[in-house]
């Protein structure tokens, strides 16, 4: 797979607070590369830097081996951007929105008309093409937000949380569309904090937290990294907080996290030690209210790596 984008040592600060801490990654041609992370992880900042709209403090971004800043306008003409916010003229029709934004990429005449038809059809808005955007539902606006980014058939489509706040039907429509666009030859860079979306569409995943890349790989490889483990989440009541020493001494226990009345325990799947864990807790005067065992998911990958939930 040929490298389309290569990012090295990317850093960005806002008012002395570093929000991106020297990250490196590559985007291969034909990938659906998903950036997964909670709000504030640095996904949108990273995306905005890759689009060339936001300057980084240091680091390099190369497109097909050349710095994007060498010919920024030329580089931008290869991109399609679906911003997180709905970036549409509400008083114009869907068609006029698409025509206008496509014209910014140099499309004119029959190419412009054809690009507009393709984008409107692709997003399923043909029957409302001449209606004002202000009359559209949230899901339709989200689809139009995508249509405005694909009419010029970009090489790299960058989608920043394109499904925020929409109904499941529109979300499925968008996710199916993303896969079809990839099949048509586009490379997709997709950010979200919904792990279900990532599991459905990604060919590769970068997990971000607090401005760092904390894991990178395919859905399967990331889960495989923790498949040797089992996670117990135990809801408890206690007078005094129990120490984790007793739990850590149990054979197979790898990690113990305590947060108020929730204890998260990561243990070796091959060791049958649940009875010992329960005994240790009861022995330290803890009352167990609930206990659940979790299977491997991107959520648990994230939880294991950061000690917090994706939606924290």
């Amino acid at each position, binding site marked *: 797979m040929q490298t389309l984008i290569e990012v090295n040592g990317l850093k960005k600060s806002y008012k002395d607070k570093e929000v991106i801490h020297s990250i490196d990654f590559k985007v291969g041609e034909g990938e659906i590369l998903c950036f997964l992370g909670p709000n504030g992880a640095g996904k949108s900042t990273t995306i*905005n830097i890759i*689009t*060339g*709209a*936001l*300057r980084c403090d240091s680091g390099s971004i190369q497109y097909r081996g050349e710095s994007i800043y060498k010919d920024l*306008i*030329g*580089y*931008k*003409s290869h*991109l399609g*951007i679906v*911003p997180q*916010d*709905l*970036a*549409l*003229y*509400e*008083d114009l029709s869907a068609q006029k*929105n698409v025509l*206008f*934004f496509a*014209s*910014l*990429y*140099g499309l*004119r005449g029959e190419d412009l008309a054809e690009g507009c038809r393709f984008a409107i059809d692709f997003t399923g808005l043909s029957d409302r093409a001449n209606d004002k955007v202000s009359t559209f539902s949230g899901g339709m606006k989200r689809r139009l937000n995508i249509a*405005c980014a694909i009419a010029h058939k970009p090489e790299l489509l960058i989608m920043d949380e394109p499904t925020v706040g929409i109904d499941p039907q529109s979300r499925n429509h968008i996710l199916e569309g993303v896969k079809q666009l990839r099949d048509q030859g586009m490379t997709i860079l997709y950010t979200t904090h919904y792990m279900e979306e990532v599991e459905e569409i990604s060919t590769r995943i970068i997990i971000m937290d607090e401005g760092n890349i904390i894991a990178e790989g395919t859905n399967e490889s990331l889960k495989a990294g923790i498949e040797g483990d089992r996670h117990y989440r135990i809801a408890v009541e206690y007078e005094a907080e129990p120490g984790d020493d007793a739990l850590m001494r149990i054979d197979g226990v790898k990690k113990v996290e305590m947060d108020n009345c929730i204890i998260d325990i990561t243990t070796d799947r091959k060791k049958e030690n649940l009875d010992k864990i329960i005994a240790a807790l009861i022995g330290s005067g803890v009352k167990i209210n609930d206990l659940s065992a979790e299977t491997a998911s991107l959520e648990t990958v994230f939880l294991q790596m950061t000690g917090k939930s994706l939606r924290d």
Partner: protein
Amino acid sequence: MYRFKSVFMLDLMNQLSNPMWVFYAIGFPIALILILGFLISGGYGEAVSSYDYFGVALMVFSVFNAATFSANSFMEERIKKPNMRLIYSPISPINIYLSKILASFAFCSMAYTFVAVFLRFVVGVNYGGANAWAPFVIMLVGNFFFAALGVLVCCILRDEGTTNNILSLIFAIMSLLGGVFFPVDGLGKAVATVSWISPARWMITACLRIIYDGDFSMFLPVFGLLIGLSVLAVVLCGRLFKGEDYL
């Protein structure tokens, strides 16, 4: 050029299709001139009627408002988000702010030309007959300068609301000082002298001298000053405009 034309046409259409802005650019000055002209008609003579005075002075006041239109066109919340796509698109940043300035200039010039023609035929405002081109040129250059000023202040403050609040206050003071609502010469020598700091004063005086005395002595200085200030404002926009402010 094709991409700039696309952005310019959309910016212009956004202004022309906004009923509030059209009213503010056409209905408001007409109503203000007719009402003030009627109320103060007794205070003016036969040769120069109150309509003649306000037909010039309040047109200058309206020219100030080109700054409000350009600031809105540049960063108004309703338009700011779709404008964000301009930052992502392969167009030079200069096209973005220049388009807002030119679209506001074109919109105000069309609107105020209509207002002037309307007032000429309805209440017979005197714009100088054969010399009318000169006040017209001063108004046009003024429109451009104030449109550029609106965008420039937005580039500095990065917020359309704050820009409009500050500019409205400054324009109100400049209008009072510049004799928009009443001639300031009667308020004493000191006030009359201070009033020259207001662009309204130069513009109104230059126009009235051309219209009533055929005196063009102030035309070139006012024209040159407005052109100079316009160039300075556009250059500063280029220095201060940051596409990131749209993100």
